């Protein structure tokens, strides 16, 4: 994780606590999970399963599947289609299929 390339344009946003890869953070409550990850400075949320390349949310509309994460330890899902929720556990994945 590095400095974020993104900032939140909403003035005085409501804050929401999320746990990303076991670390607690405050993020604007209106953000999608993908938006929250970018806001927090994640430049990689997954790794390409064949080439190993770093990947991050791209389309933000559910098409590219570059934003897959697990939420509350469930199945992998598209981070751009979920809004953050209080105390949500978000884990980025390095392996596409957990064996």
């Amino acid at each position: 994780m590095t400095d974020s390339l993104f900032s939140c344009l909403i003035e005085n946003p409501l804050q929401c606590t999320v746990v990303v890869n076991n670390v607690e953070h405050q993020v604007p409550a209106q953000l999608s999970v993908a938006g929250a990850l970018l806001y927090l400075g994640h430049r990689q949320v997954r790794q390409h399963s064949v080439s190993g390349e770093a990947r991050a949310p791209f389309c933000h509309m559910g098409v590219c599947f570059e934003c897959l994460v697990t939420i509350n330890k469930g199945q992998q899902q598209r981070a751009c289609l979920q809004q953050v929720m209080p105390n949500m556990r978000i884990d980025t994945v390095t392996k596409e299929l957990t064996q």
Partner: protein
Amino acid sequence: MGTCKNELLVNLVDQQLDHYDWIIVGGGLVGASIAYGLIQKKPHLRILVLDGEDTDHRASVGNFGLIWVQGKGFDFPAYAKWSLKGADLWPNFANQLSQTSHIDIAYERRGGLEFALNQRHLKALSEEMAAMSHHTQGDFQYTVLDRNAALDMQPGLGESVAGAIYSPQDGQVNPLYLLAALHKANQLLGVKYQPRCVVKRIEVLAQGFDADGFVAKKIVLCAGLDNERLGKQLGMHLPVNPVKGQMLITQRATPGTLKYASPQMRQTGDGTIQIGGSHEHSGLDDRSSLDVMQTIAQEAVAVLPELAQLQLVRSWGALRVMSPDGAPIYQRSQNHKGAFGVCCHSGVTLAAAHAGPLSSWLLDDPNEDYKLLIEAMNNDRFTV
């Protein structure tokens, strides 16, 4: 005169090109493979491929990408031999095509597994394989695997898998890259390609044929599901029917999740898992539907439960070009010398055979063994 003719004339400087040696009607896998074979064998030939609309039903852009031998022609010896020869010709064909087109078509031949979900199914499959081996004088190789042997080859199989058939002769390819590579190679080798040109009417001339204003000495019908209609105009009976198959694509998985290709699923070079294998008779409707998608997904998960963890990213339906017995039709018009019709369901598997021995046959220059095989697959078998 076809609407597309004028467009082409504007594009072409050489007036000579108005008359061709060969017109290929249809630029799917079958037409493109044949054009590639013809131009490779006779580089001076003037060949024109007339292709239809992008909205046409095109099996070549919706298929599964298997180069599959297992079970092909177990009840039709010529087709069994032809499929195996076709698969054996693939490594050289793939090599040459990739070199000519500079497109990596992701061809591999690691063998294939067909899974059986109960003992009865396994027994039926074993009998088909024995018949194929018989028809090919033992050239077709396969092993019947019980559940434990199947697990050694593909760990993680579901409880319901009773066993599998393995054949080292099956393989896979990226079918979209294959089609693109054929078209690119054809263009580089001098084949003319005219898209958006649905041929309506073919006239027989004193010496040759006129397809909506395009004239050539010889003509091959490779128009997929439109072959039946066009065949009639040249006195050929080319019975084909659409059989829909639906496909699912998962998110990318770790390479090696699926060790081998199978008729229900294969892992592509990009890591995604392609799931398919449905057969529906629904006319020209090629839409996907939830119930069939659920069924094929459930079948795949029954074979390999860990697939349930994967998200689906795409789905589609496509229409197979199916003859009454599922085997290809290679037809020479009896009334009109120089007219041919080619219909086939396994256009990926047979791409190398079409570029190779079938093209030689079209040029009247086949080796005798191939000639016998090819001519055994003409339409006489449908006339009682």
